[in-house]
């Protein structure tokens, strides 16, 4: 059985950043990725990122993936396994993997789960009609595979993903008929909303989908106004002819593996779902089991990346001495604090307070 200092599960921005920092300071690292490429969701982000230069602001997500990839491949002590799913984590820090048909066991001193998130769904009549997608799926179709999902689309959800994917749909030549948002205000960055609105896309707050119709695939969507209790108001129905509907109603952390490994978990609404209790180092209640990125709370890719760098550095300092550790760590923690400033950040910080414990390993 191969033995590594660190096994990182998931090669998105968090996992890649973690692997870079751990191996840069001398640890042996195995980075495991289910897909056949590095970068996770970054590779379908064609828009410029926010933040500061330290998180590659104004660079397009797909190009950030390339930057991280180059940095990772420069390192000597990192093994990368693509097309590989992590199957389970056992008490003795053995982790089982499936690469095509090969079942593989590896042992680690520490395991980092950076499995990201998955899309939430919405329950409405005929929500299983072909043509109703998750917004992330549509982004994959368009930006990874070059496939136009349909002629026109109604986007459900005005968070950053809903707004960004709507803009990318316009760029792909799809008629975005409306963005529908259940809450009373736009959740994503207003600059994204302004971009859509000036191109004539109506953004309808306090609205949701009532039902979908279509014989064999989506043909029309009925939307309606919601009251303050998020219940539909009869008589406010509007019919929109469309062959595609995108659901962008939030993400939930893909934290199942942590539960399997025995980490203590809790449900935190503002973080998107079930998340592990962590300490300042992002270590779960299981010794040497760490988390970074969306798996411990839904945020932006920039913060996922910084969290990855933090966990990588923490591990490096735990197993080998990092001479300028405190300088590097202070810089990363400041970056994270900056990214979490503002309205959205406050919301996230509240959630993080619920899962942050002094030190459960003391």
């Amino acid at each position, binding site marked *: 059985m191969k033995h590594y200092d660190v096994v990182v599960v998931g090669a998105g921005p968090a996992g890649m950043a973690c692997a870079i920092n751990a191996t840069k300071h001398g640890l042996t690292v195995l980075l495991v990725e289910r897909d056949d490429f590095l970068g996770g969701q970054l590779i379908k982000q064609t828009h410029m990122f926010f933040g500061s*230069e330290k998180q590659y602001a104004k660079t397009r997500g797909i190009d950030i993936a390339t930057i991280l990839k180059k940095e990772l491949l420069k390192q000597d002590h990192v093994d990368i396994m693509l097309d590989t799913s992590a199957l389970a984590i056992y008490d003795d820090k053995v982790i089982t993997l499936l690469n095509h048909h090969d079942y593989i066991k590896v042992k680690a001193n520490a395991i980092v789960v950076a499995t990201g998130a998955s899309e939430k769904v919405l329950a409405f009549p005929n929500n299983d009609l072909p043509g109703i997608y998750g917004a992330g799926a549509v982004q994959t179709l368009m930006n990874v595979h070059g496939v136009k999902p349909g002629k026109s689309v109604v986007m459900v959800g005005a968070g950053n993903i809903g707004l960004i994917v709507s803009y990318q749909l316009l760029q792909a030549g799809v008629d975005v008929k409306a963005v529908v948002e259940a809450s009373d205000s736009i959740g994503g960055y207003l600059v994204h909303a302004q971009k859509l609105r000036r191109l004539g896309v109506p953004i309808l707050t306090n609205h949701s989908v009532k039902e979908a119709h279509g014989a064999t695939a989506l043909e029309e969507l009925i939307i309606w106004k919601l009251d303050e209790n998020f219940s539909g108001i009869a008589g406010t129905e509007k019919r929109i002819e469309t062959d595609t509907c995108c659901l962008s109603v939030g993400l939930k952390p893909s934290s199942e593996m942590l539960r399997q490994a025995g980490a203590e978990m809790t449900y935190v609404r503002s973080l998107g779902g079930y998340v592990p209790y962590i300490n300042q180092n992002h270590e779960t209640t299981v010794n040497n089991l760490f988390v970074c990125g969306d798996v411990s709370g839904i945020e932006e890719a920039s913060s996922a990346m910084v969290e990855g760098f933090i966990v990588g550095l923490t591990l490096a300092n735990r197993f080998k001495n990092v001479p300028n550790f405190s300088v590097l760590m202070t810089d990363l923690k400041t970056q994270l604090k900056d990214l979490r400033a503002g309205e959205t950040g406050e919301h996230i910080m509240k959630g993080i307070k619920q899962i942050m414990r002094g030190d459960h390993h003391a």
Partner: protein
Amino acid sequence: MLKKTGYQEKEIVKKEFPPLKHLKKGPKAFIECYQKIPCNPCTTSCPHDAITIKGDIINRPKLDLAKCVGCGICVYNCPGLAIMVVGQADNPDYKTFDIPYEFYPLPNKGDRVLGLNRKGEELGMFTVLRVLNNKRQDKTALVRVKVPNEFLYDFATIKVGEDNE
């Protein structure tokens, strides 16, 4: 309202717009970043130090009109595509707008394109004066449009394509 509809009210646009007396001296940037978000490429990209964010990165950028030369570098560096440059056109009845544009096909110099306001409503057909799309811009083109003075506080973007004359 912006948080509900996605467009800024004309009254507020008017208030935030670079004053006309400054436009007479040369083209100026107009930053439409109304929300506190953690983002600062406008300040780091400006070669004239005309844009500053005081204190925390989430604070709104401030433009020093005296320092701004209207070069347009911030326009394609803003991740939110929230900046345009407004200048005086040759004809005093018109202004020029340099806007970020990320759609194909790009318009060509001399094309007549559909002008839209902040709600996406049609304003009329306007002439494209210049299209810049060099490597440094990283796929965000800079399109200069000639806009009649009456739409100074309305013009937001253009639509190229089937609506062209």
